[in-house]
């Protein structure tokens, strides 16, 4: 199973300009809802979850976030990849009292996460390699993003 298959060109956004986290979630929800990938409740649930269990991750050079919500609000699985024109603040996964400037977001729409450990491991491997993060941040097309994910699969 390839992680690249979870990508959907409609949910790859490059240099997206969002004024804050709520704006980001609203924008991405509308895209996913229009394509029939998520339930109506997805928006309020993902926001709520992010406020209780934040998903910001501080890496060496950049910060990323992996927002997600309970499986029942996801109709069709996806991994949205978004690079941000201007960083947005997310609280840290291991310390909600601290915020970090996130410039890359992987929004996860998984409805059987426990059956997808290989996919998640590949995603972690992408996050853990600084050159992948740099390449994603400088990507200018969906194709480039897909290629980075494809390479991961070849290595896994």
């Amino acid at each position, binding site marked *: 199973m390839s992680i690249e298959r979870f990508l959907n060109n409609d949910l790859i956004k490059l240099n997206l300009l969002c004024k804050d986290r709520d704006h980001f979630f609203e924008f991405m929800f509308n895209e996913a809802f229009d394509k029939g990938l998520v339930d109506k409740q997805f928006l309020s649930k993902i926001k709520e*979850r992010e406020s*209780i*269990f*934040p998903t910001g*991750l*501080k*890496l*060496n050079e950049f910060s990323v976030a*992996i927002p*997600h919500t*309970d*499986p029942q609000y996801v109709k069709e699985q996806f991994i949205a990849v978004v690079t941000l024109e201007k960083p947005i603040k997310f609280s*840290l*996964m*291991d*310390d*909600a009292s601290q915020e970090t400037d996130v410039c890359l977001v992987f929004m*996860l729409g*998984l409805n059987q*996460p*426990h059956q*997808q*450990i290989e996919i*998640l*491991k590949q995603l*972690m491997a992408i*996050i*853990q*390699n600084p050159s992948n993060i740099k390449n994603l941040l400088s990507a200018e097309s969906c194709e480039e993003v897909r290629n980075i994910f494809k390479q991961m699969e070849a290595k896994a």
Partner: protein
Amino acid sequence: MKKTVLVACGAGIATSTVVCNRVENLLKENNVNAEVIQCKISEVKSRQADADLIISTTILPTTYDIPSIIATAYITGIGMEALDKKILDALK
């Protein structure tokens, strides 16, 4: 004596599956006799009496009677060896 480790997720949080797998391998490789149980963070309170250690990918909403370790390092890849050691030490 066999130890019990709870790997907690927020609410079916995807990342804890990966952490659970990593912890299982870590303990096996180091011959630690332990059972790794994946559960929701809300269940930890009621299950801690039978466990020795809590490993969580998210912030802990409350304090517990047994030691707890936050395992975000397994997701970011930063400080993974130190985290391995911390977990092994906690189970000694």
